């Protein structure tokens, strides 16, 4: 042996790692894995499409929803269309908070620039808001109507959201009481604008020219629409039609009214979205990554807005999420949405944005109900029993064939099982991993693939001993060869897992995850448990002396005699 190995130390390290994993499990406090939809049932959300969507749109929506529910983890949720206006989402177990929102949110994200708001009053008439006419809103304290003192601040308000949210700021001209349902963007007219510097007129195609110049001088019709519009009570969603080519009048959840330019950047120009807490901040934000065209447009906006008090607005499904000013010229195509996010709401929004907008909108408040398991109760127990008996047979066979070494196989399988269980627990906590029947069967099958590593190794070792090496030498020589074989073979399995995980959806994704997990654990156990264990055992006379029950005796190897560990017999008899 060229290198001095310390199998004891490696073994110790391995067990410390395993203990750490279980320590983490103890921290999360759950000791049973989340079972899949087929085994324990779950939550069923029936989304009802608004209007009369085409079948293609419905199917496309169900696929996007599928990505959303399965995208953040591997929960193996099921999404089906039903009839011609329902999308049924089934999620294993208790549905996490905000899930309904993640699922049904249309997620039309648009970036627009702000012409004026009810808070800054640049659009002439929008002065201090009068008392709300809405009886519900009028019960709220009137103090909050001043809304954010600095309109440019990143949409965050000093008040916490929720019950003590300031009441809605209504425009002065709230003659049409049902402003919330009005068409917010009136058609462009030829009316002369008031004293704004450079009145922007809708051009021949009905466009509005460059939104960045339009924002300084919005056309009259839009201002009129802005003044006619009335925000719904705070907390309710503003129901507006969000047409990217037209100016938009809408509100944020604080009840501040905005007049916004036509969309500058669309949600389709996003390359990614993530939730997180930026360094040196305390609030959750959703960070956005634009693709190349989005980046260049965003750079243009930030150049135009930098150094002014002008705002741009991030509009989601017609609702203003936040309306920050530009603090710097941003050229790297990264933006953040901040504003009263919790961890859950930020993650939920990021997930909705990541997988694109739904082509259709759904009725609010879809029915949510609990569903039972789809598999008969006896299937799970039968499967587990069968698997257990199968494993027992495997152990008996290993003991019978490998005798003493069989104990190493059994110990390795046991350790692999313990590691797998810990990982399943941790992942069901962090990645919504659920164990469905295919998953359980997959893990049982993984026994075969895991045991194969050991079999390859032991056979190599025995081959080396047949060549006349003593056991301690054969342990290392066999290892060097078996290691490469197993690495190559497991790479194939990992490739399969990785590619299927990236491309597949639903059950297959969960399966790929389980496959990758068991392959990785196989490698870890093989490298840091089985090999050091055998190296360690090789010090004992029972194994290196070729005891009858060690599985390495001359008789079980099928040779006349074996070389013992005595150095004097180097090159001894075969």
């Amino acid at each position, binding site marked *: 042996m060229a290198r001095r190995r310390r199998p004891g130390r490696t073994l110790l390290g391995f067990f410390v790692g395993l203990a750490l994993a279980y320590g983490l499990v103890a921290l999360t406090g759950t000791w049973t894995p989340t079972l899949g939809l*087929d085994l324990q049932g779950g939550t*069923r959300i029936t989304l009802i499409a608004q209007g009369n969507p085409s079948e293609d749109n419905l*199917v496309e929506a169900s*696929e996007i929803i599928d990505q959303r529910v399965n995208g953040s983890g591997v929960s193996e949720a099921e999404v*089906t269309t*039903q*009839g011609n206006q329902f999308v049924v989402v089934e999620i294993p177990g208790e549905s996490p908070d905000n899930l309904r929102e993640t699922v049904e949110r249309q997620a039309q994200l648009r970036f627009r620039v702000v012409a004026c708001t009810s808070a800054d009053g640049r659009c002439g008439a929008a002065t201090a808001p009068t008392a709300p006419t809405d009886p519900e809103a009028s019960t709220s304290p009137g103090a909050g109507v001043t809304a954010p003192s600095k309109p440019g601040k990143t949409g965050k308000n000093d008040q916490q959201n929720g019950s003590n949210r300031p009441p809605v700021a209504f425009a002065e001209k709230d003659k049409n009481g049902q402003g919330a349902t009005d068409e917010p963007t009136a058609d462009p007219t030829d009316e002369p604008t008031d004293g704004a510097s450079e009145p922007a007129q809708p051009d021949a195609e009905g466009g509005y020219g460059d939104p960045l110049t339009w924002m300084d001088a919005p056309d009259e019709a839009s201002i009129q629409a802005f003044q006619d519009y009335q925000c719904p009570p705070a907390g309710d969603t503003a129901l507006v039609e969000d047409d990217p080519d037209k100016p938009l009048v809408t509100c944020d959840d604080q009840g501040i009214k905005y007049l916004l330019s036509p969309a500058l950047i669309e949600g389709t120009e996003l390359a990614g979205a993530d939730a997180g807490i930026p360094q040196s901040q305390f609030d959750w934000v959703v960070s956005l990554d634009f693709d190349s065209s989005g980046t260049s447009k965003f750079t243009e906006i930030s150049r135009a807005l930098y150094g002014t008090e002008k705002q741009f607005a991030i509009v989601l499904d017609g609702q203003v999420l936040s309306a920050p000013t530009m603090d710097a010229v941003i050229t790297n195509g990264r933006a953040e949405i901040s504003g009263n996010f919790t961890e859950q709401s930020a993650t939920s929004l990021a997930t909705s944005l990541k997988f694109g907008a739904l082509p259709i909108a759904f009725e609010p408040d879809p029915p949510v109900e609990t*569903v039972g*398991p*789809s598999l*008969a*109760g*006896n*299937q799970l127990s*039968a*499967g587990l029993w*069968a698997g257990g008996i*199968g494993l027992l*047979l*495997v152990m008996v*066979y*290993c003991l019978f*064939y490998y005798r003493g070494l069989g104990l190493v196989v059994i110990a390795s399988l046991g350790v692999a099982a313990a590691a797998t269980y810990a990982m399943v627990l941790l992942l069901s906590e962090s990645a919504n991993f659920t164990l469905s*029947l*295919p998953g359980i*069967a997959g893990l*049982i*099958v993984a*026994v*075969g*693939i895991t*045991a*194969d590593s050991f*079999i390859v190794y032991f*056979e190599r070792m025995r081959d080396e001993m*047949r060549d*006349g*090496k003593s056991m301690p*030498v054969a342990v290392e020589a066999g290892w060097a060869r078996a290691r490469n074989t197993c690495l*190559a*073979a497991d*790479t*194939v*399995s990992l*490739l*399969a897992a990785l*590619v*299927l995980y990236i491309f*597949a*959806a*639903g*059950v*297959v994704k969960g399966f*790929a995850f389980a*496959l990758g997990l068991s392959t990785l654990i196989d490698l870890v156990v093989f490298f840091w448990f089985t090999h050091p264990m055998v190296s360690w055992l090789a010090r004992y006379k029972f194994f290196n002396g070729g005891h009858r029950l060690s599985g390495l005796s001359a*008789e*079980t190897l*099928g040779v006349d005699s074996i070389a013992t560990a005595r150095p004097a017999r180097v090159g001894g*008899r*075969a």
Partner: protein
Amino acid sequence: MGRFSRLGNDLYNGRKSIDFVGRRWLWYALSGVIVVVAIAGLGVRGLDYGIEFTGGAEFRVSVAASEATQDTADELRQAVAGTGIDAASNPVVTTSGSEAILVQTEPLTSDESDQVSQILLDTTGAAAGDLSQTELGASWGERIAQRALIGLAVFLVLVVLFIWAYFREWKMSVAALVALAHDVLITVGVYSISGFEVTPATVTGVLTILGFSLYDTVVVFDKVRENTKHMRETHMSYAQAANLAVNQTLVRSINTSIVALIPVGAILYVSAVQLGSGNLQDLALALFVGMAAGAYSSIFIATPLLVHMKSGETEVQLAERRARAREKAKADRYAAVPSFSEGMAVTDDPEATPAPRATSDAEAPVAAPTARQPAAGKGRTAPASQRPVSRSGSSGRNQPSRSTKSKRGRR
């Protein structure tokens, strides 16, 4: 066990050898027949796709609050499956909330749907107004399948590249792919012939096979590469080296197959024989057939095919010629030396009458060697070595060498 171990040793040093590579046409023919049967089964019977792929009908029965239990659901499942309607043979039955049960079947004709409705009402005792029926879309729509297929294609391309890079041999990639196609075809064929329903569980099973088949082939090929790398020193032809590799990994292949198939077999037995139907059975069948085929194909298909493809290469042909020449030389070496037989006079004994040498031809008692065929014409016949002579990992050459010093250089 002793005998199996002895076999292991004999297979390892080549004393015993099963001719996997030489009889390749036999294996090709065997697999060919099985694959043709599988394809024929697929063509004639087709595949029976489950609700997840085809969509279907969903019945919703409202029942009394206490009755929407798992037991009622199980009972309904039995009842619906018992109608004998093909499309309703494997219904999905779940409780929904505490007051309703959902029953999903494959698309039904209106007659069949009436029949199922009737059964549902009879079993639960609910009134006709408590039953509603809607149309159910496929949860495994075309686009999901399409994405899965793209993923599969990407995976196969990556695997081909990986095997090529690892073994430095594109022919190994091709052989592994052929073996893979063989396994998947057989599995799908058996599936179609057995008439089991194709569910997402089946897809999962087939994907597992994909991984397992390639895994197994890589393990065998690794040994093939190891053996053929030293072809020149061991004086073997490519075919011999590959065949030896397969023989050497045979024990491992048998053990692995046993260990992998036992649990799957147990699940298959329990689910198919004792439970009768369900997802478990679909998965277990796909796995059992596929894994067995995977183990078979890496030995009987992949390796012979590899040797077949390599046989045209110059290097391989040279090795083959060397191996043949060496066999001839080795066989001839002691051809004329009379071998010892019972009753033969021992010349070393001073007391005994010295037996005249080289008169054996005339005087019958010395028997010609029977076990060995004297090779054509020249020299003497070598006695079989008493000990295995094979390449040893530690010295990097053949050991132990029993020939005298003067003979060593001539090898």
